[in-house]
């Protein structure tokens, strides 16, 4: 919220230039570039890049879902260690106040003028623009036990995910959690700063259970964005839902008035899956086979039955000798809405690497898959069950982490906070 009266912008030197223009531009789907925020005009004054701008924090839905996918991700899951309901309430309200400031490029709290106490903001983002930072908070199924009296407030759709084919390698210690926080920005320092300060505010009330950094978006969530490639070198997600298609967003992403829990109206569900790619094996697979696995041409991104990326795939197409052009177990076929009763998801994943696997020396890298949907049990589970069982891609990937979180509505304004409806 523009609040000239309080708070000092951590990018005071940009404030005048960015002000309203930045906010107006933010929602319009930039994000193709980053690192250009410090470009200067002829007279030496900095000119803001749209990728540096603010995304409005207060809105009907939380930002970071239908926001044009930013370039960087910092994600964390927390377990609440306090059993005091007041502590949880103070935590969520403190997070909301901090997020309202950070997403607008401000530091947390007032200016630190008291030298005898630690600064309220950790400071590493001072001088950096908002960088389209969005902070999206969700609640895991485990939050709705007896600790806080939320047992009767758990939506049916927040049943823990069932075991899905391909779940054999999931690691409990990097899966699930009471709370999740997704911070996306065009600057990795800005994204990390948000998660770090959330963890700091949480100390004594909640601890970080696991976290994941993502260094490059693998999804486009608006028509304006080009489809990026995953670490296998393919454009995956060409047919993703797009924010502009509001009817489809309402149908597949946003929880409506039918919600069994009113507090979930305007919300959605987040599914996270850390999908490690067996990169060394993939890199030795011949191009024909790689393309057969995905069902797309590697360079153009076109389906094997077409010429351009957005051509509709013809799953019935046969070769001259009568074989399927698109393999029966190709990723594109199994994931296609037409093969899944029309089901769609909003994918918003990021490439990750955590260095190498010390046991083998192989790269530990892949896709941190994030999807938003109205009901994961009706959308994610059936699609992933097919993929997990039949996808040719399974030879080259391992799912190592899984999470399901209820993402409540957006906040109405200062004084509102995540889960406020749960405390009344």
């Amino acid at each position, binding site marked *: 919220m523009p609040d000239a*009266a309080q708070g000092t912008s951590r990018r005071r030197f940009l404030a005048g230039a960015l002000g309203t223009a930045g906010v107006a531009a933010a929602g319009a789907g930039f994000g193709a570039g980053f690192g250009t925020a410090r470009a200067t005009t002829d007279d030496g004054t900095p000119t803001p890049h749209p990728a540096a701008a603010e995304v409005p924090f207060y809105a009907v839905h939380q930002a970071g879902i239908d926001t044009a996918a930013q370039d960087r991700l910092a994600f964390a899951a927390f377990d609440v260690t306090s059993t005091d309901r*007041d502590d949880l309430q103070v935590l969520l309200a403190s997070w*909301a106040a*901090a997020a309202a400031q950070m997403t607008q490029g401000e530091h947390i*709290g*007032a200016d630190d003028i008291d030298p005898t106490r630690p600064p309220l903001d950790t400071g590493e983002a001072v001088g950096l623009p908002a960088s389209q930072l969005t902070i999206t908070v969700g609640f895991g199924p485990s939050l709705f036990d007896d600790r806080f009296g939320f047992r009767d407030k758990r939506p049916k759709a927040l049943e823990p995910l069932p075991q899905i084919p391909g779940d054999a390698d999931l690691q409990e210690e990097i899966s699930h959690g009471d709370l999740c926080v997704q911070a996306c920005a065009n600057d990795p320092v800005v994204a990390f700063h948000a998660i770090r300060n959330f963890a700091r505010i949480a100390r004594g009330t909640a601890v970080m259970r696991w976290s994941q950094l993502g260094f490059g978006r693998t999804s486009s969530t608006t028509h304006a964005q080009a489809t990026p490639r995953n670490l296998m070198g393919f454009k995956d997600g060409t047919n993703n839902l797009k924010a502009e298609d509001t009817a489809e967003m309402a149908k597949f992403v946003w929880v409506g008035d039918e919600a069994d829990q009113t507090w979930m109206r305007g919300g959605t569900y987040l599914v996270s899956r850390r999908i490690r790619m067996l990169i060394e094996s993939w890199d030795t697979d011949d191009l024909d086979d790689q393309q057969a696995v995905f069902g797309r041409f590697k360079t153009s991104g076109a389906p094997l039955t077409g010429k351009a990326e957005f051509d509709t795939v013809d799953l019935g197409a046969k070769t001259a000798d009568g074989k399927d052009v698109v393999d029966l177990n190709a990723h594109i076929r199994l994931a296609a809405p037409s093969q899944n009763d029309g089901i769609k998801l909003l994918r918003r994943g990021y490439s990750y690497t955590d260095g190498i696997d010390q046991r083998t020396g192989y790269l530990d890298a892949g896709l941190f898959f994030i999807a938003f949907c109205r009901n994961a049990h009706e959308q994610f589970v059936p699609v992933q069950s097919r993929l997990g069982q039949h996808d040719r891609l399974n030879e080259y990937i391992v799912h190592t982490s899984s999470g399901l979180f209820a993402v409540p509505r957006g906040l109405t304004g*200062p004084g509102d906070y995540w889960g406020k409806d749960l405390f009344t």
Partner: protein
Amino acid sequence: MPARALPRPVLIAGVTGSLAALLTACSSSGGGASDPTGGSGTTAAADPRVANVTITAAGGCAPDKTSFPAGGITVKINNKDANAVSEVEILDGVRILGEKEGVVAGLNGEFAVTVDAGEYTLYCPGATPEKTTLTVTGEAAQGDEDIAALLKDGTTAYAAYVEDQTGYLVEATEKLNTALKGSDLKAAQDAYKVARPFYEKIEPVAESFTVGEENLDADIDARDGDVPAGEWRGFHKIEKGLFEDNSLTGLVPLGDELVTNVKKLQTLTTGLTYQPTELANGAQELLDEVANGKITGEEERYSHIDILDMNFNVEGAEQAFGQLVPALQKIDKTLADTVLARFTDLKTLIAKYKTDSDASGFKLYNELSDADKKDLAAAVKAVVEPLSKVASKVANA
């Protein structure tokens, strides 16, 4: 003999007693977070002893009245929508008389102060305006115990505590040295475990004597690699001989030298006086010791008695903090309660590892799982975070 069997100062009992009193008071005060639709109602507005403070982004920090009768005043806060504001204080000059933290946008909170006639400042850091002058008239019904006097009592008591502990340290180190000169390895190992806690309780005081090349803490407590190899001496070099080499060979000169150094520490600390902020910061440093050295098992890498160290770092921290509690209770009762409660949680967690199977009185650290260590680390940080706010509250008192 486990070190914990040795006599303790009586102070802990005082801290525990006041904690019980605080918790009772807390449960009836209705403090903490509550629904913003409740809180400062119209009936309270009529009470001349209640300041209803509304915080908004547009209007700053506004009390419903600025004149009060002397005596107890309750400040009821409702932060409607000011994201940059999370605390409210009452100041007498620069001295904080009372404070409430965690009143972020959307939440309520309250605290109480006792004031005599005069001018005071209502201070809401980050609000615009952030300061309002409050005028108090008349005589307070009952004299309030002066915060400054309480703090002075606390620092004096802490000085006595440090002197006691250094006395025990000298005694136990001399016994260790005697054992090193004998031939019973097990007896020497046990004597090492008895001597360690006394140093761990007061380590920041020893660290304060680090000036330039002089480093008494390193002479007493350096680990292999902390200092150039030729300068390594003290407890941990003895530990390596006793627990890794399993031999008393060559340890006598080290024992003699250690006795000399702990006596030097005793001389330096005798008659020393402390500032309240030093107690707060010292408590924090002790817990940082736990978080950065003991949790990783790097401190007692040969004997694995890290939980023993941890236990007494925590005890030393609680002793230092405990001396500030009577004053802090008046300044920021919620914070005092929180820190005390989190100390209790941490001690409860550490107590899980008590056992008679080792002379240290605790499980050896290499028997703990990674999950156990993670729980300990989180419990330590849960104390440190609110504790880090204490120094500023007692700084100008």
